C-alpha cells in the first residue's frame, strides 16, 4: 500500500478553516511530549501555561494587551502577503515606530495628552511607513528581494534604537542605564480596565482590524491586491500595476507595525529601552498565516499567540523553563499549520503498491 497526494478538484473550504485548529492541537500534543521528556507533569504544565495566566482579571488584561501589537503587525503583513509581497521586517518597522512616537514624547513633555498621543501615533505610523518604504523602493526600483532587505533593516533599526538610548536620549538621572527617562502621564495611553494594564491601544487594534476588513473586502484597491496575489499574470493584463501592489503591501505593513511600536512604548513600557518588543514583529508573521490572512482570523490567532507569550512567561516562573520555549512553540505552530494546509488543495489516496495486491500483475507490459 502506498499513500499518495491527489489534487482536489477544488480547494477545500472546510480544511482552510480546520487546519489552524489542527495545527494548534498538534502544537499542544507536541508540548505534552516535550514536557514529559523534560520530566515535568504535562497536565500541570498545561495548567500553568494555558489556564493559570488567564484565570484572573489581570491575566485577561495581559492577554488582550499582548494581542494588540500582534494583531496590528499581522494585519498589515497580511495585506502584503495576500499579494505575494513578503515583508518580514515588521519588527524593525515596529522599532522605528517606537523611536518616532517615543521621541515625540521626550521632545514635548509638557504637551497636553489629547494632542500628544494622537501625534505620537501618527509619528509612529509615519516612521514605520518610511522604514517599510525602503524595501518597497528597492524592490520596485532595483528589483531587490524584499524578504532580505526588510529583514536586514530590522538589525539596522534595533542598533539605531540602542544608539539613541545609550547616547543622546539616555536618561540623565538613570544611573547610566541604557534607557530614556520615563514618559509623563500625558504620553501614556489611558487604561481601559481597572486592575489591569490593558489600555486603549487595544481598541485601536480592533479598529485597525475593522479597517483591514473593509479594505480587503470592500475596496477596489483591496480587490486588486487579492488578484495580484492569486493571479499575477491576470492582474497585469487587467492593468493592475505590480509596483503599486508592492508599495501598498509594504507601506500598510509598515504603518500598522509603527503604530504597534507606539502602543508598546506609550503603553506597558512607558519609556524607550534598547529592546521594545519580544519579537512581536516576527511572531506576527505566524499570526498572519494562522489567521488565514483574514482580519477576523488574525484577531483570533493573535489571542492564541498572546497566550503562548503569557504561557512562556509563566513557564519561566512556575516551571523553571527558559522563555525561549515560546519561540520554539511559535515555530512549531507554523510547521504544523503548513503541514495541515496541504490538505486544502490535496487529499490522501491509498493506492495498492504493485505486487502487494491480490491481482497478479502481468509478467510483461506497462505497469500502468
Amino acid at each position: 500500500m502506498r499513500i499518495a497526494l491527489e489534487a482536489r478538484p477544488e480547494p477545500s473550504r472546510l480544511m482552510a478553516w480546520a487546519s489552524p485548529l489542527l495545527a494548534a492541537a498538534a502544537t499542544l500534543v507536541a508540548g505534552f511530549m516535550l514536557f514529559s521528556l523534560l520530566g515535568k507533569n504535562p497536565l500541570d504544565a498545561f495548567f500553568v501555561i494555558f489556564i493559570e495566566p488567564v484565570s484572573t482579571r489581570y491575566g485577561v488584561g495581559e492577554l488582550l494587551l499582548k494581542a494588540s501589537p500582534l494583531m496590528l503587525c499581522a494585519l498589515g503583513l497580511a495585506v502584503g502577503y495576500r499579494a505575494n509581497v513578503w515583508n518580514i521586517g515588521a519588527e524593525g518597522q515596529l522599532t522605528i515606530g517606537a523611536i518616532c512616537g517615543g521621541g515625540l514624547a521626550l521632545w514635548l513633555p509638557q504637551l497636553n495628552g489629547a494632542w500628544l498621543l494622537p501625534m505620537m501615533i501618527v509619528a509612529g505610523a509615519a516612521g514605520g511607513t518610511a522604514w517599510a518604504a525602503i524595501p518597497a523602493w528597492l524592490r520596485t526600483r532595483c528589483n531587490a528581494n524584499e524578504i532580505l532587505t526588510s529583514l536586514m533593516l530590522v538589525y539596522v533599526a534595533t542598533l539605531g534604537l540602542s544608539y539613541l538610548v545609550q547616547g543622546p536620549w539616555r536618561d540623565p538621572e538613570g544611573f547610566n542605564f541604557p534607557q530614556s527617562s520615563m514618559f509623563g502621564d500625558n504620553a501614556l495611553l489611558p487604561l481601559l480596565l481597572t486592575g489591569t494594564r490593558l489600555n486603549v491601544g487595544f481598541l485601536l487594534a480592533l479598529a485597525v482590524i475593522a479597517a483591514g476588513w473593509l479594505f480587503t473586502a470592500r475596496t477596489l484597491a483591496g480587490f486588486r491586491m487579492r488578484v495580484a496575489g492569486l493571479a499575477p499574470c491576470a492582474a497585469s493584463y487587467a492593468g493592475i500595476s505590480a509596483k503599486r501592489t508592492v508599495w501598498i503591501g509594504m507601506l500598510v505593513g509598515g504603518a500598522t507595525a509603527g503604530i504597534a511600536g507606539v502602543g508598546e512604548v506609550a503603553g506597558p513600557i512607558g519609556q524607550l529601552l534598547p529592546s521594545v518588543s519580544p519579537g512581536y514583529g516576527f511572531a506576527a508573521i505566524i499570526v498572519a498565516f494562522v489567521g488565514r490572512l483574514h482580519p477576523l482570523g488574525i484577531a483570533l490567532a493573535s489571542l492564541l499567540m498572546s497566550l503562548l507569550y503569557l504561557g512562556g512567561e509563566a513557564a519561566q516562573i512556575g516551571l523553571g523553563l527558559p522563555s525561549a520555549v515560546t519561540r520554539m512553540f511559535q515555530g512549531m505552530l507554523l510547521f504544523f499549520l503548513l503541514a495541515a494546509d496541504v490538505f486544502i488543495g490535496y487529499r490522501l489516496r491509498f493506492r495498492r503498491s504493485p505486487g502487494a495486491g491480490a491481482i497478479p500483475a502481468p509478467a510483461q507490459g506497462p505497469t500502468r
Partner: protein
Amino acid sequence: MIEHAITLFALTLAAGTVLVFAALGELVTEKAGVLNLGVEGMMLVGAVAAFIVADQTGHAWLGALAGTLAGAALSLIFAVLTLSLLANQVAAGLALSLFGIGLSAFTGLSHVGHVIDPIAPLALPGLSDLPVIGRLLFAHSPFVYLSLLLFALVQWFLFGTRAGLVLRAIGESPQSAHAIGHKVIAVRYGAVTFGGACAGLGGAYMALAYAPMWTEGMTAGRGWIALALVVFANWKPWRVLAGAYLFGAVTLVQFQAQAMGVDVPSQFLAMLPYAATIIVLALISRDAVAIRRNAPASLGRAFHADD
C-alpha cells in the same frame, strides 16, 4: 605594516569562512530549485549542537560533526514540509528560522558562559613558522581549509559531474527532468539536506573556533546575509567565495575602526554589514536580465508529479 596587513588578511578569511559554508550550501539547495530561508535557524542549531557536544565530550571535532548533522536534521523538517507536503517554501523557511532560533536558545541555555577547548589554528612544524608565507597560507583555522575544499567540491560537483547536471536541470525545469525519468523529489531532498549540513557546519565553526562560545542568537543575521550572498553571486560558487570574504572584510571594519580610535558610535559601525548587504543586493538586482539568466528557473516553486 606588513604584519598588520597579514593580520587583516587572516581575520577577513576567518570572518568570511562562516558565510562560505552557509552560502555554498544554500547555493546547492537553490540550484535544485528550492529556496530555503531557514539558513539562520540551521546555523544556530548547528552552532548550539556543536558547542554542547564539544562541552560534554571534550572533543571539539566531534562537536563539528554534531553541528553538521544537526543542521541537516533541521533541514529535513523543511524538506518534508515543502517537498512531500508541498508547503509554501517562503513560509516554511521562515518557520524554520524562527523554530531554529527558539530551539537553539532553549537547548543552549545551560551552556551559556561555558568555556570549551576550541579548535586551534593550523600549526604545521616548519611551514606555519615561515616568515610571511607561513602566516598567509599555513596558519589559518582548519575550517578555512575545509571551506575551500567544500568550494572545490561544490564547483566540481555542479559543473563537472553528471549528477550535478541533473541537479541543475531539476532546478531549471522539474517537469522536464521528471518526464525523462529523474527523481526530482529525491534529488531535492538531497540538495536541501546538503544545504542544512553546510549551514550547520558554518554554525559549528562559529561556536568552536571563530567565537568560540555559545550565546543566544550568536550568528546575528549571518544566515540571512548568506542568502543575500547567493543572489549577489549570481548562483556561481566562485562569486560566493569572493562575496563572503568581501563581507568578512566589512564586519572587520567595525573592530578596526574602534581600534584606530575613530569617533563613530559603535552601533553605526555594527550596522555596516547589514547596510552593505542591502546596498549590494540592490546594485546586483538592478540587472534583472542577469538575475533571470542565472537564477534557477523553478526557484521557490513546489513540484508535484501529477500536476
